[in-house]
């Protein structure tokens, strides 16, 4: 019996030591494992340890801490790419994980569908900006002016579609994530392409 306690304590210490190799990523887990370790070290045997853990005898606190660290990192990751909708999905998951009190609650409150509507918006924004970049160049490559004009009108229509899902979108957005990440045009190139577009349509963007 005592051997089991020793093994368990050694396991917890080993986990903590590895988690401490990346303090930023594993902060919640380190704190949760240290709490459990403290209970384990102060228990006389394995049964007492489980009794002291009480509701947490299934070590849900450790599983939850892992989810919290995971979702927190995912929020930062998507913020870095400028994918606000994806970050929001993981913010919601983070909130649910933080407030869940059991494995069942965690499973119940984290439906897979949580991500779908938001991720769809994110994908639409990216796809729509790709269309705009292609059209912005295409309005210059046709020989006939009426075809160039038709492409310019199409640009305007697609631009408004993107504005309807991202009201802050403007030409400047091509230099901010996530749009910057797919834009191959330099500032002076965008200025030149925009000028050609405005000249064709007779209006400013």
């Amino acid at each position, binding site marked *: 019996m005592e051997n089991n306690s020793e093994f368990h304590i050694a*396991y917890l210490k*080993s986990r903590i030591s590895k988690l401490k190799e990346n303090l930023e990523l594993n902060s919640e887990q380190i704190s949760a494992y240290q709490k459990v370790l403290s209970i384990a070290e102060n228990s006389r045997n*394995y049964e007492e340890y489980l009794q002291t853990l009480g509701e947490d005898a299934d070590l849900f606190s450790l599983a939850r801490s892992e989810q919290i660290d995971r979702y927190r990192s995912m929020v930062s990751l998507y913020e870095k*790419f400028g994918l606000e909708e994806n970050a929001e999905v993981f913010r919601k998951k983070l909130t649910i994980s933080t407030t869940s009190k059991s494995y069942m609650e965690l*499973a*119940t409150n984290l439906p897979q569908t949580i991500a779908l509507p938001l991720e769809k918006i994110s994908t639409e924004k990216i796809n729509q900006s790709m269309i705009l970049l292609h059209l912005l160049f295409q309005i*210059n490559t046709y020989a006939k002016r009426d075809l160039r004009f038709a492409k310019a009108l199409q640009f305007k229509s697609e631009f408004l579609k993107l504005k309807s899902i991202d009201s802050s979108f403007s030409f400047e957005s091509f230099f901010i994530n996530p749009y*910057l990440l797919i834009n191959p045009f*330099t500032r002076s190139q965008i200025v030149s392409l925009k000028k050609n577009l405005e000249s064709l349509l007779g209006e400013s963007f």
Partner: protein
Amino acid sequence: MDAGLKDLLNSYRAGLKTYFDSLPNDNAEVMKANKLLAEMESLAQRSSDYSAFMEEAQSKNYFSEIITFHSKLGNELYKSKPKSTKIPSASDIAKGYHSAFESMGELKNDPEISAVYSRVFQLEKEVSSGPEFIYRMESENLFLQMSKKHLIRVMRDGLDNLLNSGKPSVNEKIGIVSSPQMEHYFTTIQKKIIESKTVIEMEIIAFEEAENSRFSNLWDSTFLFVTFHSILSPLVSYRMTGSEEDRLDTKHAYEFVCDFYGLNWDDLFENSRIWDYFEKTVFGAAKDTFLSQNIHSAKELKTDFRNHLAKCVENIEMNSDRNKQKVNFRGKEIELKDVLKFLKSE
């Protein structure tokens, strides 16, 4: 009551029966679930037919509510069970790893994956208790290794599939996929996964590299569209039709792209990214067609295209201007000639 409706309601009741059998009748959630089922049955009795029931049940949100009772009652069941103080055996814990390994199919034969699981199953026999089993697994890094070896194998397969895509035989040197950024993705992610210290770290790396790669793909696709396809599309049309309209479109596109990027036909094909794409994807994907036209290599195809372009424009040899040969790559102004290098490294 409509027979179809009766079956439907019976199926809802049967679905919740396990919970009803295991929980006390006066449990608040059990009472609510029974009340909802009774309301649905009453509505079914009153409804003239199946569709009338479905319409009203939908408007009352009955279907969503009944589904949520599966998780609500599951939660009640979980809460009602006493927490076990029995120390689990190594076999209790290892059950999940046996099922995971058995469900891997062909991957079970991967020597690295098989070696990790063999060690896990050997430990299961060596140790005397669950806590010892978990400690030994942790100290030998087996939890991480199980995930790591599996993911690395998946990534290695992904890279092999990419590189071999479209190859008619293993002796062929050119496939149809030119995707330096994807090759970069698969090789980088394998390296980073090997270096990762925890499962979460590995997962975050996987997500980050996948997003990086997605954006590089989209960037590359736009880059190739504007610098190359803008010219190639009308030129291919002209090569097929010889029409005046296609000739003028080719001329206009060529002159615009050359002026915009300060380059000419030779500069374009000397660009390592464009040449890789041209050789592997444009020529490689339609190799049989080009062979039937007596064109045996990407270089010959380039010459053929050039000959057609010469019929569209007065001056192929436009002046190069290094100052214009720039692109934006993730906020950096880089030279056109460096595109391939950046796709392989960022």
